[in-house]
């Protein structure tokens, strides 16, 4: 109060300085990507703290689990759950291969194989604290071979895509985020559609799909949806979820509806990161074709 004039004067100046700095930063961001040195510094200071907190959290939830159930029961359950996930993946792949086979009988000379992608496990160490975005941070980064656009799986389904990579951490945008768009296809008919996250549907953990051609192929609720062969960022055949509702759009040309994702996004703890990206595979294909 005593230095009222002086302090209000200088705080006004400070506000102007900060505003100018922020506007410049916003401008710079348009031309360069990534936060530069600041993000680098933050990656080495805040990420270890987040790792620590999530470690303590995991430890504590493990402890309570031990008190709640018998230990071997838990182990058995875990084993079975991983078996279920494995089998679901296998099943999806096999069914896909079956449909593939049918098509291959008609179309020959299509040598594409869905080999097992190389995966590494990672822990989710932090979630986005704002309600406007749905992304999370994992504890594996470029040191472990994670790259931007690496696909991330949780359990048996697709969870998201890496948008930012640091040496020891990576930020993953989940597929239910409002800005997320995934090129997908119906497993049985291979009709492509777009799977879009929606802020409105985020709360009940559903996804929206659209632009599915309104052709003679019958699609019913319960149909499996996987990532499509035309996507430039997502590897083919990753399981997204089941169709829960479908209807013909008013233009009579396309169909749209809702998908229940295979991943429960409210409690993600461990995820699998596929270290090969679609771009890698595409460039490899190109190289081998040129070599022929």
């Amino acid at each position, binding site marked *: *109060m005593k230095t009222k004039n002086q*302090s*209000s004067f*200088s*705080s006004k100046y*400070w*506000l102007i300085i*900060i*505003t100018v*700095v*922020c*506007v*410049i*930063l*916003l401008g710079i*961001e348009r031309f360069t990507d990534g*936060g530069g040195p*600041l*993000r680098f510094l*933050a990656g080495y200071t*805040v990420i270890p*703290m*987040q790792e620590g*907190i*999530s470690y303590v*959290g995991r430890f504590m939830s493990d402890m309570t689990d031990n008190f709640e159930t018998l230990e071997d029961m838990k182990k058995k359950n875990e084993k079975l759950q991983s078996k279920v996930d494995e089998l679901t993946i296998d099943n999806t792949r096999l069914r896909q291969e079956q449909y593939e086979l049918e098509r291959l009988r008609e179309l020959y000379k299509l040598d594409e194989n869905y080999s097992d992608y190389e995966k590494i496990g990672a822990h989710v160490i*932090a*979630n*986005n*604290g*704002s*309600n*406007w*975005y*749905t*992304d999370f*941070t994992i504890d594996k980064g470029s040191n472990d071979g994670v790259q931007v656009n690496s696909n991330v799986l949780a359990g048996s389904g697709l969870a998201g895509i890496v948008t930012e990579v640091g040496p020891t951490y990576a*930020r993953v945008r989940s597929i239910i985020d*409002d800005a997320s768009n995934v090129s997908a296809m119906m497993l049985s008919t291979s009709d492509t559609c777009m799977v879009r996250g929606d*802020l*409105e549907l*985020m*709360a*009940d*953990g559903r996804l929206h799909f659209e632009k599915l051609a309104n052709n003679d192929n019958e699609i019913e609720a319960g149909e499996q949806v996987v990532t499509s062969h035309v996507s430039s960022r997502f590897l083919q055949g990753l399981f997204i979820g089941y169709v829960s509702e479908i209807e013909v759009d008013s233009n009579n040309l396309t169909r749209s509806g809702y998908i229940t994702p295979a991943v429960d996004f*409210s*409690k993600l703890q461990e995820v699998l990161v596929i270290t090969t990206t679609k771009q890698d595979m595409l460039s490899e294909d190109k190289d081998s074709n040129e070599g022929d």
Partner: protein
Amino acid sequence: MKRRSITFVIILICFLLESSIFHRLSFAMIKPNLLIVVTSSFGFMRGRKEGMFVGVISGMLIDLFWGSTLGFNMLVYAVIGYMNGTFQRMFYDDDVKLPIVLIGTSELIYGLITYVCVYMLRGDFAFFTHLINIILPELVYTIMVTLVLYQIILHINKKLEAEEQRSASKFV
């Protein structure tokens, strides 16, 4: 120096809590906004300048880890801290109404600005969907958390102020 480091630690703790524990405590995927409570309460407790700097640090953390462009949240939080600072003269320790009204208003302004600058500019004009699904639930949850968090911040501030007065009187 002591005040600065304690303020920074408060911001950091709230930031870390929000991305870990409050994710578990979220109702229908809605989390309270702890950093707006911190920014706003430092604003009206300590004046424009300090509110502004607390806002800059909180905004920077948000931009670096949760946001997409560096600078946006920094600016919004700095302005919010500054505006709360102008109410310093009306602020009394034992009054809870003013802090709650100020924090609520800050939260509402933050929600509206984020919607306009991030979603509306992207061509998403479903304002009421965002208002009902995100902005209002977040506002209610934040005000509920404020009742507890604000008391803690107030208590820490009181302790610090008492200590500063003691050391100032020592020199006189």
